């Protein structure tokens, strides 16, 4: 797909959010390239910090991302069994072509996680690097930066942001 429109990018991100909210995680995983990364840095790190020499909350390569999905689909992922209900809301989508054929996309997200009578809010920005394919895109990189000072009171990132 060349000359992608913002509408197409938004449709893709909304589709991703919907797969997550439906807990169709194996299908969600298919959205990623084989060399994909998914990162959630700690909030006291400077922008652009690398997980190679900084402590993150999540720094998955494609292998670990696959293992995360496998784990979350098990009953023994106790924190998410039974599954929480989530609602991923994506907005303020902006895109910028790169020198290669990929796109840099920025969006804001609000994600709610509800379980056991408690609803937690995750708020932040996500930066994607998307690779156009014949029908849509693949995610090469997804980095979610939370706005809150700390991970309180939610206390965990047991879902995918």
């Amino acid at each position, binding site marked *: 797909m060349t000359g992608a429109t913002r509408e197409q990018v938004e449709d893709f991100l909304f589709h991703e959010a919907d797969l997550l909210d439906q807990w169709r995680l194996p299908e969600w995983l298919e959205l990623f390239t084989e060399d994909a990364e998914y990162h*959630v*840095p*700690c*909030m*006291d*790190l400077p922008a652009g*910090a690398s*997980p*190679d*020499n*900084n*402590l*993150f*909350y*999540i*720094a998955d390569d494609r292998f*670990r991302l696959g*293992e*995360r999905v*496998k*784990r979350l689909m*098990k009953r*023994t*992922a*106790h*924190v*998410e069994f039974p599954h929480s209900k989530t609602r991923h809301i994506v907005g303020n989508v902006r895109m910028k072509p790169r020198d290669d054929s990929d796109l840099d996309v920025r969006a804001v997200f609000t994600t709610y996680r509800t379980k*056991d009578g*408690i609803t937690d809010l995750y708020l932040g920005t996500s930066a994607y690097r998307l690779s156009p394919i014949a029908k849509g895109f693949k995610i090469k990189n997804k980095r979610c930066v939370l706005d809150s*000072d*700390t*991970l*309180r*009171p*939610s*206390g*965990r*990132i*047991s879902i995918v942001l």
Partner: protein
Amino acid sequence: MNLMSQSNEAGILVDNSKKIFKVARRNFVDPDIMAAEKERIFERSWLYLGHSSEIPKSGDFVTRNVAGRGILFTRDAKGEARALLNTCPHRGMQVCREKKGSAKSFQCFYHGWIFGLDGKLRSQPGEEGYDSDFKSRDTSNMTPVPRFESYRDLHFISFDRNIVPLPEYLAGAREYIDLICDQSDRGMSITPGTQEYSMRANWKLLTENSIDGYHATTTHASYFDYLGGTTGMPVGDAKSRPPGNGYDLGNGHAVIEYPSAWGRPVAQWIAAWGEQGRTELDRIFNDLVARVGQQRATRIAKLNRNLFIFPNLVINDIMAVTVRTYFPMAPDYMVVSSWSLAPQGESDWLSKYRLQNFLEFLGPGGFATPDDAEALEQCQRGFGNFKDVPWNDISKGMNSESPGARDELQMRAFWTQWNKLMYPAPVPQKSSVAA
């Protein structure tokens, strides 16, 4: 806190003849107990503040909340680490409002008072309105924390002026801090990035959980599934490995020490780290042997340690080294901060694998810690029944001469000290409670 001394309900119940050690579930839910803990434990213990490596140069600072107190952890112009109560002597405002940084001085913006890195008042607007020796008075300076000492670059504070010196307080825990810090001959350092999270559970549940070898197989089943795929060897069930040991280190400190299936950056190789990793880990191990001898090197590199330092510091030397401290905000809510501790100047390659290893298990986004949080929160919910089901049992291993890492000696060490501080003599008799 008269109600504590008036209470005829015991905090713990010990019967050595029947090998029973029980802990009252009320200890996890009662707001009066939490208020008493603040006075009797958090105001009277040595509490972890931070690590030397977080403020390497003069002027570097970190602000941190320790047991509800705002603390400014800085390094003064002479290179001395300082711990100041982060409150202006003038009208009380928090002087430093940044989480970390580097400064030449600290200014309280409210009225513009300026303090040196040592907390001494340097200048204040309208000085002519004050007595001529005002600036030379101690009361014009920021106040240091009453007690401030360090051991192996770990800095602790205490609000109790009369507390025993830190090395004496640490007692048997010193041996284990040494084992961890001896991983490097260049010192250890905190990796940038703080995991700051929380659990909707009583803080003492995390104490228990951090030194509990018994829960791993079932609570962390999914982590061990994962690990089996990365180590190149069957992880198997815990029964296939020696159980290790649990030790009471005195003053409420405790440790478990045990072998494991996971890789250790210093230094237990796993297949996922490839041939480059094998070469590097062999080199690290051989260097360690040359420095501390075969026996100590093997203990340092091949065994894991979950070390608890009373009342709220955990240093777990496992698939990575995590330093974790936590405080109660309510009987059913705690805040947790954790860091990664690593040998100073570790190679880029090893640092990367260390951090991957850390995140696979540890922290709020890991494959294990979130399940711990779930377990602790479900315990807290279960304690809603404490009036009818009043006791926890932590007697596992009481029938053994040398309890293992999957026994509960460590928790008994904690609770015995907790009880001693919370219920000074006379100890309630067991005849006054139902087993």
